[in-house]
């Protein structure tokens, strides 16, 4: 059997697929590994931006017809004078076809958001390592780091044909962001050194974000998946109103400022909403309101809150291919509601979806592979860069049970728990051997990686050491079944593992970990809970340990929620710590652990640092987090979360591998607008 690989046990860790350095991320994976044998991990690739503007522009046949009928201005007038030019991955495409896809309900808005990600001001190239122009054609960061200037594209239009200008930024800033009814609290992303910034119009096509303190991180924030870096597709959906611009000409009609409170309220009542704020929340949401002018490649024609979420091409989309064809190639997207993951996967096997990576289950890989020809699709495995798809997030401020709280706040206890996990077993069972076991630190290829040794620190099975550490903590007494007893009342020490069945079968992961912990005398009590209930308890800090991913932390500054207690909506590490940090020390509880304080201090100082210093800073933070085991990594850098990609063989320009990361808005940075149907 040539494909045979040694079965477990020997402890060989497969090098991460993405071995090359950050500069060479686009290079093929060359390491001799299981992935090569499978032939499923391709070359990281994607469309690239071109600076040559084509001489003439072409459009989809049905748009041409509408132009002929006088319903639409000619394509040249619809495009900005300097459209974004993309060189498709393989070839110039053909127009037509509808992208069939699955979504799982109104809460699955991210499904569409990610496809529309090119409405962001700045974005990443397909490698996820370089910030590139998007809606803004260029940006400048002043030398002092206090001002970021965005240059817009002249003549760019909203989806309804209205001009898109700096005024739309000012409108968002003054009328939405500063309106307490719409945005009750200012966001940290818009602040530098604790002071809120401003949005200033320089001219029609130039906007400045001005801060009182240096904010070198700001362009990355704009490009990242942050509250300020949204674009409409993320940050003005689902009840939010963030993200730097909004269609002023359309939304003014719903705002009291432009008529009167009474008038907009009456309008809201007539439309069936309680008040104008409720109405505005729906009207500015691209997933809900087909009338909302947007900038993305497609626009909603049937909203997400129906059994079919459908989109059609935006005739004013600002992107063309190198031949001057206005994108997107595909006419539209039809997402059909399938509330059950098994059904999504089964329909995918039946070839009922053209490209699906979301909600595809890694555990079904053998079956998905078996049905490739039948469903006429290819399977691609895209490996992520975050440290651990399964992470034990430790509540270091658990107060309900002082004994458990004390232990969870003790670094050696957390380290012992981590040492007690046999990660190879979990990798083999739940990732089919496709993950990299280790700590929560991101892949070595990431600029913020503290180095390979930190992937292993405290994160390789060592039962003897773990037992020694636990003994040293005074947990020496054991009951008849070998479980350690509490020091306060002599009862069995029970550590709850709160697990949710979500992207992975985390309760099963937790069960296996709990079984492994028997060897270190720790009784892990798996609490499988329904998602809402579990998070409710996490937000109020009732949990011991939450089993969840740390996806997104591959770029720490852009998505710190699952690494440090900085987000008041996430109490995984102690909600009071989060409150303390978010309130600049005016609320919540100050952590007593000097390492935690140090990590938070480093994190806070990052915004004012230049890129290189910032990356160094992040590495320092990672070293603290891994050494202190704030979160215990299990296995990561796998295709488990959105990395099993089924692409119809009828599609072209599909990359062999795409960047799986929060900031890449997978598959957004691969520009689905460049995909097309061969026949």
């Amino acid at each position: 059997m040539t494909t045979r690989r040694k079965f477990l046990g020997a402890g060989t860790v497969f090098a991460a697929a993405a071995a090359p350095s950050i500069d060479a991320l686009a290079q093929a994976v060359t390491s001799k590994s299981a992935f090569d044998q499978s032939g499923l991990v391709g070359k990281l690739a994607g469309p690239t931006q071109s600076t040559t503007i084509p001489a003439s522009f072409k459009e989809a046949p049905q748009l041409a017809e509408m132009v002929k009928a006088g319903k639409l201005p000619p394509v040249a007038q619809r495009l900005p004078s300097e459209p974004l030019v993309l060189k498709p991955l393989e070839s110039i495409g053909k127009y037509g076809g509808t992208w069939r896809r699955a979504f799982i309900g109104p809460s699955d808005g991210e499904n569409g958001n990610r496809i529309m990600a090119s409405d962001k001001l700045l974005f990443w190239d397909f490698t996820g390592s370089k910030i590139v122009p998007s809606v803004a054609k260029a940006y400048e960061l002043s030398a002092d780091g206090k001002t970021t200037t965005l240059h817009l594209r002249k003549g760019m239009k909203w989806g309804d044909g209205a001009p898109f200008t700096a005024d739309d930024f000012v409108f968002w800033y003054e009328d939405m962001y500063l309106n307490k009814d719409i945005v009750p609290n200012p966001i940290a992303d818009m602040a530098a050194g604790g002071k809120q910034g401003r949005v200033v119009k320089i001219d029609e096509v130039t906007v400045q974000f001005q801060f009182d303190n240096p904010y070198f991180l700001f362009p990355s924030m704009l490009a990242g998946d942050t509250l300020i870096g949204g674009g409409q597709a993320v940050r003005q959906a689902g009840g939010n109103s963030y993200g730097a611009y909004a269609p002023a000409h359309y939304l003014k009609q719903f705002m009291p400022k432009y008529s009167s409170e009474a008038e907009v309220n009456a309008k809201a009542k007539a439309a069936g909403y309680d008040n104008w704020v409720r109405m505005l929340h729906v009207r500015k949401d691209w997933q809900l309101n087909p009338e909302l002018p947007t900038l993305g490649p497609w626009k909603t024609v049937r909203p997400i809150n129906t059994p079919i979420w459908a989109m059609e091409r935006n005739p004013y989309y600002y992107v063309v291919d190198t031949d001057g064809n206005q994108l997107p190639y595909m006419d539209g997207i039809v997402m059909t509601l399938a509330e059950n993951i098994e059904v999504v996967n089964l329909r995918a096997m039946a070839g009922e979806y053209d490209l699906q990576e979301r909600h595809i289950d890694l555990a079904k890989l053998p079956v998905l592979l078996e049905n490739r020809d039948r469903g006429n699709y290819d399977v691609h495995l895209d490996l992520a860069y975050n440290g651990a798809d399964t992470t034990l997030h430790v509540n270091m401020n658990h107060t309900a049970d002082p004994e458990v709280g004390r232990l969870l706040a003790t670094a050696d206890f957390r380290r012992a728990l981590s040492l007690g996990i046999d990660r190879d077993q979990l990798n083999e069972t739940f990732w089919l051997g496709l993950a990299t076991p280790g700590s929560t630190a991101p892949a070595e290829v990431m600029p913020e990686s503290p180095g390979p040794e930190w992937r292993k620190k405290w994160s390789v099975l060592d039962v003897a050491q773990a037992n020694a550490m636990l003994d040293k903590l005074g947990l020496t007494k054991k009951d008849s079944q070998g479980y350690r007893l509490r020091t306060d009342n002599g009862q069995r020490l029970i550590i709850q593992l709160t697990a949710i069945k979500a992207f992975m079968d985390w309760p099963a992961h937790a069960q296996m970990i709990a079984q492994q912990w028997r060897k270190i005398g720790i009784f892990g009590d798996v609490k499988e809970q329904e998602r809402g209930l579990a998070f409710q308890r996490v937000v109020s800090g009732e949990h011991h340990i939450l089993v969840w991913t740390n996806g997104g932390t591959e770029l720490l500054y852009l998505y710190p929620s699952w690494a440090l207690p900085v987000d008041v909506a996430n109490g995984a590490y102690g909600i009071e710590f989060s409150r303390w940090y978010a309130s600049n020390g005016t609320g919540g509880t100050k952590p007593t652990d000097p390492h935690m304080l140090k990590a938070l201090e480093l994190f806070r100082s990052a915004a004012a640092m230049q890129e290189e210093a910032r990356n160094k800073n992040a590495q320092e933070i990672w070293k603290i987090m891994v050494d202190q085991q704030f979160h215990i990594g299990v296995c990561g850098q796998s295709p488990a979360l959105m990395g099993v990609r089924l692409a119809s063989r009828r599609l072209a320009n599909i990359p062999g591998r795409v960047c799986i990361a929060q900031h890449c808005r997978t598959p957004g940075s691969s520009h689905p607008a460049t995909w097309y149907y061969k026949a």
Partner: protein
Amino acid sequence: MAQIDSEKYAVATQLQLTWWRFRRHRLAMVSMVLLFACYLLAAFADFLATTDPHATDARTSYIAPQGIHLFDDDGSLRPHVYGIKGVRDMKTFKLIYTIDPSRKVYIEFFGQGYEYDLFGLIPTRVHLMTLKDAERGDGIYLLGTDLLGRDLWSRLMVATRVSLTIGLVGVTISLFLGVLLGGISAVYGGIVDTVIQRTIEVIRSMPTIPLWLGLAAALPNDWSVLQIYFAITIIISLLAWTDLARVVRGKFLALKEEDFVMAAELAGASQGRIIFRHMLPSFASHIIAAVSLALPAMIISETSLSFLGLGLRPPAISWGILLQDAQNIQTLALAPWLLISAIPVVVVILAFNFLGDGLRDAADPYG
């Protein structure tokens, strides 16, 4: 013969009569024996288990059921299993197990295995079958293993105990509620009757799933598996008593008109005496029949609850949890043997149905 028989009939109580009629119901008798066997099995669940039902091991993940070989090479009776080794094929990502007949692992009867409490009382390590000199990964995989490498046979044994008892406890509670409320409803009548009947109607009009969901979600977080187990039982039975209450009320009302009850009343017997001495015994068999028909409903309730992710949760082991484990495509495609756990569910539900039918026929041959 006929003479003796009729004399026997004349003095037989209703229960005895029912029993005699019941014995003639062959299928019901078989079912009863089968159920008795199941409960016996449940009592000795851990003893019959071959490996710790919770123990996980990646290297035993998804092993298909393996037979026990009875005879050694020399023809002597020495039950053994073969060594087994698995490899993941990195093209198909399937686990491929190869059996190594050259390595025999002998089965020891009444050997030492994992520790458990027999009948929940006596700590012991004795199991019916264990392996002698087993290497890691060896096992008696009678029904194969699940994804986490846990032995399905052993899990099934423990699940049987949990699911069969949850039904019993649940039925006991709903029986109590049903007889009490149904009885009160019939005896007092009037406004009490109306209130109880209305309550029953409202409960029956409520779709059960939201009720379960609401009640199960309200269970405190720090409850142990055992506490949740009993809470779920109580929840199920809180909704299941209505049918029994109706049966009891109906029977009560019908019996009230019967001559012997009237006679007792005229003779000045107290109400309590009439109910417990005269009325209850006369429809005890109906209640038994209703109970045996309610049990499978309880079991299905537990299964559905677990299936919905409410109710019992892993690491608890119940039929519902085993079935839920099998409710995904990869199991159907790669480890269809996990569906075996449906067989005892079906068989026990069938048996309870037959038993209930038999009892009902016997209790009320004309009803």
